[in-house]
Structure formats: C-alpha cells, structure tokens
C-alpha cells in the first residue's frame, strides 16, 4: 500500500512545492524567485506537451521548439500590432493585434495544431532516427523563416512592451501571472492523465510498442500518432506563448534546436512517460541553471553529468528515483 502511494505522494509534493515557492518569495519580498517559478511552470508545460508524444507515443520529436517558438511569435506579433494599432492582415479580412491573453492562447493552439498536422503528416511516415532528423529539419526551416522576417525583428527578435490581459486577473503582477501559468500546467497535467488512461491512450502506447500488432487488431497507427503529436504540439505551443509573455521578448532563439534539446532534457531528466516527469525535470534544470549558473558559467557541465547519471543509473529519471518504477493501479 505504501509503495502504491509513493508516486502520487511525490507528485503532490512537487506540485505543492512549486506553488509554495513563489508564495514564500512574495512573503520574503524576493520577486526574482516568482519569475523563476513561472519559468519552471512554463517549461514544465512545454515538457508535458513533449512527454505526450515522446513518452506515451514514442515519437522522439527533435523539433518541438518549432511549436514553442510559434507560440512565442503569436504572443509577440499580437502584442506588436496591438501596440502599434496596425493590422497583421489587411486583406481579404482585417486582422489586427490583440491585447487579450485568451485570444493569444486560442490563436496559438490553432496555429500549433495546423503546423503540427502538416509536420506530423510528413514526419510520421518515418520512424527512429529519420523521425528525429525530419522533425529537426522542419523546426530549422521555421527558425530560418523567423530570422528572415524583418517586420518581426528578424534575428533581433521582438519585444513585448505590454503583457496581454485576462479578465479579473492582473497579469502584470508576477504572482498572478505565475498562478495563471500554474493553473494551465495543472490543466495540461490533468488532460494528459485522462488522455493516457483512456482507450485512445492505450492505443497510442500500443502504437509505440508495436504498430504492426495494433494494425492486425483493426486500428491504423498513423492517425492515432498524428492526433497525439498534434495535441502534444498544442500544449508546447501554449507554453511558448506564456514564455514570451513572461520574458516580454521573443526571438528566433525560442525556435532553435538547442531549445528542442532542452525540452527533451526536461522529459528525460524527470522520467520519460511519467506524468509529472517534466515538472521534476524542468524544476531541476532551472535550479541547476540559476544556482550553479550563478556560481559558474560552466553550469552545463554539471547538467551534463546529471543527465549522464540519469541515463546510466536512473532510467526512470527523477520521478523514477523518488517514486520507484512506473506502476499501474
């Protein structure tokens, strides 16, 4: 019984710690740490997205920064046009900027979905190393496209002067913005939990384990994987929009392959396919980055060693280390 409760306990501690940290920081008047907690929540959200594709579906996407960056650019472009009062599209119908965070989110989800459907439709015809390479190639295409867009800052990126707004919430307040990110993270966790434990989730895991066997039972693996890939991209895209609003800045760096790699690192550090893995992974990553990074610029050496030891000695990641092997019921 105690063994069975370990993973939920670890998850609960993680989620509570992420909530208590910024509240304590506000109480101690240390607003910097509120921003740090928001970063953890947002990057964890990006990881939750990738974990659906990588962990449950076995699709090692090395191009999820494409969706992360697209979300960022949606936020950036909406803010720019709203700020300038100019139009994004003048014809055939006029589309201007927006100051509403809800609009930014909805557009981000739609754009991520459309792009993911296109990328997935092509990429999912391959598997293994080829899938990794082709998703990377698509992300790089979008990266260079962003660089060559002078209207939206090109290589220099785009500043967001005013964070978009939500009804009843002062998004300019760091703690309120954190709570928004936190709520979205929890919703995404709940959604993926329900999804993975549904019939669709079982079929998705079957497609990962053996697509041929799934086909002989009457389910085509391709649409199942494409759906999961698209949902995964939408979640990561949403994280990108929040990330741009948090930093007040979006640049092609959000689309770079290093960013894709980082999102994979969150998932692997935390534990591939474990629901709360990306939360643990992103938290550990940010802690290493800010505390060891404050002490030496070579903090990535430490990250490398941690990653190496996770891959060699703790295959289940941080969650696996704390909560034991994945279990059912």
């Amino acid at each position, binding site marked *: 019984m105690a063994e069975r409760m370990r993973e939920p306990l670890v998850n609960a501690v993680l989620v509570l710690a992420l909530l208590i940290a910024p509240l304590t920081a506000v109480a101690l008047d240390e607003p910097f740490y509120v921003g740090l907690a928001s970063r953890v929540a947002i990057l964890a959200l990006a990881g939750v997205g990738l974990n659906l594709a990588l962990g449950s579906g076995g699709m090692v996407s090395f191009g999820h920064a494409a969706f992360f960056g697209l979300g960022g650019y949606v936020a950036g472009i909406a803010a720019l046009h709203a700020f300038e009062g100019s139009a994004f599209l003048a014809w055939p119908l006029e589309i201007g900027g927006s100051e509403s965070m809800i609009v930014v989110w909805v557009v981000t989800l739609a754009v991520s979905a459309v792009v993911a459907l296109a990328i997935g439709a092509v990429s999912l015809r391959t598997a293994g190393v080829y899938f990794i390479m082709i998703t990377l190639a698509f992300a790089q295409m979008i990266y260079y496209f962003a660089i060559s867009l002078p209207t939206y800052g090109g290589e220099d990126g785009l500043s967001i002067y005013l964070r978009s707004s939500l009804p009843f919430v002062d998004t300019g307040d760091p703690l309120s913005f954190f709570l928004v990110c936190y709520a979205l993270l929890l919703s995404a966790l709940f959604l993926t939990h329900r999804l993975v434990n549904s019939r669709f989730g*079982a079929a998705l*895991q079957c497609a990962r384990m053996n697509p*041929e066997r799934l*086909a*002989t039972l009457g*389910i085509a693996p391709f649409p199942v994987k494409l759906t999961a890939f698209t949902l995964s991209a939408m979640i990561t895209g949403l994280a990108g929009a929040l990330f741009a609003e948090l930093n007040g800045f979006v640049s092609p760096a959000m689309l770079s392959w290093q960013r894709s790699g980082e999102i994979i690192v969150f998932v692997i550090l935390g534990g591939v396919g474990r629901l709360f893995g990306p939360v643990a992974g992103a938290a550990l990553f940010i802690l290493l980055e800010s505390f060891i990074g404050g002490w030496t610029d070579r903090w990535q050496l430490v990250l490398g060693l941690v990653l190496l030891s996770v891959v060699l000695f703790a295959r289940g990641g941080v969650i696996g280390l704390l909560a034991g092997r994945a279990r059912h019921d």
Partner: protein
Amino acid sequence: MLEVAGLETFYGPSQALFGVDLVVGEGQMVALLGRNGMGKTTTIRSICGLTPAKRGSVTFRGREIHRLPAFRVARLGLGLVPEGRRCFPNLTVRENLIATARGEGWDLAAVTALFPRLGERAGQIARTLSGGEQQMLAIGRALMTNPRLLILDEATEGLAPVIRQEIWAAIRDVKGRGQSILLVDKNLKDLLPLAEACVILEKGRSVWHGSAAELAGDAVLQDRFLGV
C-alpha cells in the same frame, strides 16, 4: 467465408509461398498444418495484409482483401492471435483488452468468463504475466475485436500441458458458439477432434486438402507431411 487461391508471397527476392489454396466456411474450424518453415505463418501474414502476396487472391466474405492494409483487413473481421503471445507488454491486462475492442458480443465480462485468470489479473502489467496467461490475453484481445474469423497461430506452442489444456478448452468453447476459426498448430491429438477440415503445406504449397477425420485415420499421410 475465406477463400485463398494461388497465393505467392516473397520476402524481398526470395519466394516463400508458391501457391497456397485454402477455404474456410462459415462456422468452420480449419487447421493449417505442415512442418516448420513450410509457410504456415507466411500464409497467415499474407491473409492479414502484413506481408502482402505478390500473386493470388484472398477473398473474405465476398470481398477481395489482398491489397488492403492490415488495419482494414482487421476491421472487416479478421482477428489474428499472432505467434508467440504478442501482448502489449507495458499495458495492463485490462488496457490490452479494451484498447482495440470493437463491435458487440465479446466484451470484458465475456472474455474474463472464458479466462477467469485475466479477470483476476486485470490491473497487472502484461509483461509480468506467465506465458500461458499472455497467450490467454492475446486470444482475449483478438476476441474483443469481435472477429468473423479468428486466426490462431501456434496458440499452444511452448506452454505447460495444463495450460495447454486450458487453452484448448477455451478454443472448444469459442468454436461451440459458432466462431469460424483458422488455426495453425502441431498438436494433432487435440486439434483433429475439433477441426472440420485440414490443409497441409509443404515448401510453400498446399499439397493436401481433406477432412480432419481422413487425416486422423491416415498414419502414412501424417508421417509423410508432418512427422519429424
């Protein structure tokens, strides 16, 4: 219900089947026999669309299926229990059963009534089941797709005698409900009393067709094609 004619299948440049014919009628159980390496599994893979045949035809309930992808064939009502207890190892028993469930008739309750052990182990991860239990799971999973024709490839191979009898009892039960079955197995003793017709493969060809009773009574025939 299933008619296979002149099936020729290749793995790359090497030909594995040189002309296989077989017919399974509604409610019938047909046994596909032959020594190892004679093309039994290849025949089944070709029927299911996993290794499509280059020549020949596969007609299932009046429809030509040999150019269809595997999942379409399965949806038309072919339920395969592949060789070697192929479960989805990281899913629970219950998830394995419900993930691909389709149609009416066989449901979770019916399958766990057939194999009570699957009910006892519903929450267990398939990888940790015994070999016999995994085989029961593979059969249960195929039944849950409510197939018109159930295909069992070496369903009792490598299992303890007690478990083997349990599985034969289940096959008998399923057949008794009118299920059409195409079966590959080597246990003539268990199989012949149950099957209506037999087809023997040799070197990728179907070389003998006849009733199970004929084969049961012909020791020379058994020895020639099946003896080791």
